[in-house]
């Protein structure tokens, strides 16, 4: 009984936050609700007995991505006045499409036979994960770091002020 209540509460917070994100007129308030949704998702991870992923979620999503988003909002704040309509002219179709998608996915979930097993979580998940990351998955690991380097260089190049000649061969 208790886990069900906990799950219900967490889903409420997460989905409520997510709905607030996509419907709020003030984009900064949207960002705050996004943080709430992230917190909810972190709680879901804890419920799923993956505390490491929960901590990573808090660190990366809330600690880095949400803050980056708020920075970007602050930097582009001037033009979004408070009475601007935040829905574009296709919102009805978008809502219908999303609802339809949710229906299809939900139907799929309920009618599929998931091969659930009743196993327990390994005793030292982080050690195991570390070993696998550096042996079986070492190539994706390295590629991920190259990706991050590319993103780092790319975002700096794209986002910098061009006060010198922008004729460059890079």
């Amino acid at each position, binding site marked *: 009984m208790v886990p069900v209540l906990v799950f219900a509460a967490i889903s409420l917070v997460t989905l409520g936050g997510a709905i607030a994100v996509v419907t709020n007129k003030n984009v900064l308030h949207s960002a705050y609700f996004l943080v709430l949704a992230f917190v909810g998702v972190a709680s879901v991870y804890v419920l799923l007995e993956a505390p490491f992923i929960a901590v990573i979620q808090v660190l990366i999503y809330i600690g880095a991505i949400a803050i980056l988003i708020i920075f970007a909002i602050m930097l582009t704040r001037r033009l979004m006045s408070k009475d601007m309509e935040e829905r*574009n002219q*296709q919102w009805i*179709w*978008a809502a219908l*499409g999303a609802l339809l*998608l949710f229906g*299809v996915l939900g139907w799929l979930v309920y009618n599929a036979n998931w091969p659930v097993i009743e196993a327990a979580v390994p005793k030292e998940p982080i050690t195991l994960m570390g070993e696998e990351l550096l042996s079986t998955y070492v190539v994706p690991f390295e590629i991920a770091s190259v990706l991050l380097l590319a993103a780092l260089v790319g975002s700096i190049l794209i986002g910098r002020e061009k006060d010198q000649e922008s004729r*460059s*061969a*890079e």
Partner: protein
Amino acid sequence: MKEFFFNITWIIPVFPFLAFLIIILFTQGNKKLSHSLSIGSMVLSWLVGWGVVFSAIATPHLGEHPIHKSVPWFETGTTTFNIGYWIDPLMAIALFMVPFVCLMIFIYSVGYMGYGTDEVDPNYSRFFGYIALFATGMLGLVISENLLTLFMSWEIMGLCSYLLIGFWFEKNYADPNQITPRQAGLKAFLVTKIGDLFLVLGILYLYSQAGTLSYADTLFNHEFLVHLAETPALPIFGGWSAASAIALLIFGGAVGKSAQFPLHVWLPDAMEGPTPVSALIHAATMVSAGVFLVARIFPLLNIVVELEHNNPTMGVIAFIGAFTAIFASIIALAQNDIKGVLAFSTISQLGYMIAALGIGAYVAATFHLITHAFFKALLFMGSGSVIIGTHHTQDMMQLGGLRKKMPKTFWTFLAGGLALSGFPLITAGFWSKDEILAHAWEEFMHYGTASWPFFVWLLLTIAAFLTAFYTARQISLTFLGKPRSDHADHAHETPNTMTFPLIMLAFFAITLGWVGIPEEIVGQGNNWFHAFVGHEYASTPLSIPVILLSSGLAVGGLGLGWLVYGRKPLEAGQMDPLQKGMEKIRLGWLYKAMQKRFYFDEIYEAIFINGFIKLADIFYNFDYNWVINPIVNGVGAVTRGISNIFNKFDEKIVDGLVNFTGLSSVKLSDLGGITDLKVVDGIVNGIADVTGWIGENVFRPIQTGKVQNYLLILLISMLAIIGIYLVY
């Protein structure tokens, strides 16, 4: 009863932390509620704190069997870090001083920040929130049970010093060379951060050797300390032991936080903050945290001395302390800002304490730490009282004659000043400073004139004389004689919320010394302070020459200062007699250097800051002009060259073919041309018209250029495909 207090020790930093949270989140609009919360939390911490202190005093053999309790906090890998508290004599003594002085300063701040007047500071509540957070940090540091929580509290205090020094961050000055509060806050934070770097390295090194950071298992575990002293340190430390390397690294943190040379540059500029901040952070508590830290690792230092001979660790510490003491007191002679003199005086007195620890005088250093906290806070608050009473006049050359106009401030300031100078017998500063000098004398006698204890003793003695001299200068310029400006003329005494704490602290500045009077005077076993704090260290034998010397220095310095500045008080606009005197013997440049604090800020800016900018410029040029860009551009040029070749090739051969084809086609097309015109043209035009119509009226509107439209179409198509797949 004692058990009760020992069980609730953990709650001491919690009260002010809750006050901070509530004030910052909820009560910033209500000034009275904010200061009541702050002061109330401090009263609770003080009551519980003194409960713990007196229970600790009543516990026999506390030094050999400290009381500690902790709970596991988090695990990483195989270690568990705890959070808890540790009660031993050092902590009890510090806990006697910290909450009480903090409480006095909080009460004082009510008056200083102008509560109830027209000039009340608009950010009044935020101030009380921040000083509550600061108290959390200091109290956390004092009761901490392991180096990790100590470091956390250390960093909290670093943050608060930034927030509080830069409290009036909107203030700007017309003169670009004068440091604004915002810059001073950053400077304090960054300079102490340099010291913190060394502290972190020391803690990490210790952790790598011990696998834990709790005091019980490291600093107070004799076998571990011996093991450290016998382990050679990492190769970059030369032939020293791990123990001395760790001690020196951790001492680096104290150099930053306690503003010792060469990291002293932040403290004078920290005077840009409100005076209660100066009293709290830079006199009584935060800078003393550095001394507290060195006292905490004293067992480590002791092991180095015991087991290694000719190890320079203690020497380095003692020398830095003694050099700072004298260097700062020389600068203090030439400062005209009333808070500037006190800032350098603080640096100098902290040098005393560090030097005392460096020569092994643990009890004396602790004693001086406590007495100094009281009288330095008193002096800062007194100077704040003067500032408020004279409508924000800080230049002593514009003051004078305040003795009659602000009597309570005068008498308490005098008590603090006498304590600072070490006026014999009746002030606390005398007993604590005398103990340091006695210990230095004993070491000097032991090792002879050609050793560093001699230099330490010499520097400390000269500094004591200079301390008395500049104190008398300050008191004479500020309070004696006739007012030298209008503000001083119209000065008035400050409200009771400010003078009441002054009186309370003055009481302690006078009487606190009596708990540590050496045994020879009050009878065997009656030096209560030594018995409680340092029973395992031999007490310094009383030496009559030193007592006479200390008294002589104090009275002599005060007397000389009064003769120069007080007997014939300065008129308005008259030059400082010291400056005049030095200029006469061609040392005017030296006076100027003293006034400009020996140009340290300028030197650091030239070497470090400009140096880094030049280095960054070199790297930028490497990237842009010298290496990377030329390579990339070169590759582009080569590629373009190759494609030009292909282009030429293309033109010559392909053109030939094309021209031939063209000639033959012309003949053929002439034939078809007539049919074309009539029939084909008609069909083609028709198709073109239809396509154009479709394109303009069907496809053009779809290409709105808006990405979201494209995405929506994508979604609908995908759903359609899924639907078809599911159905079939």
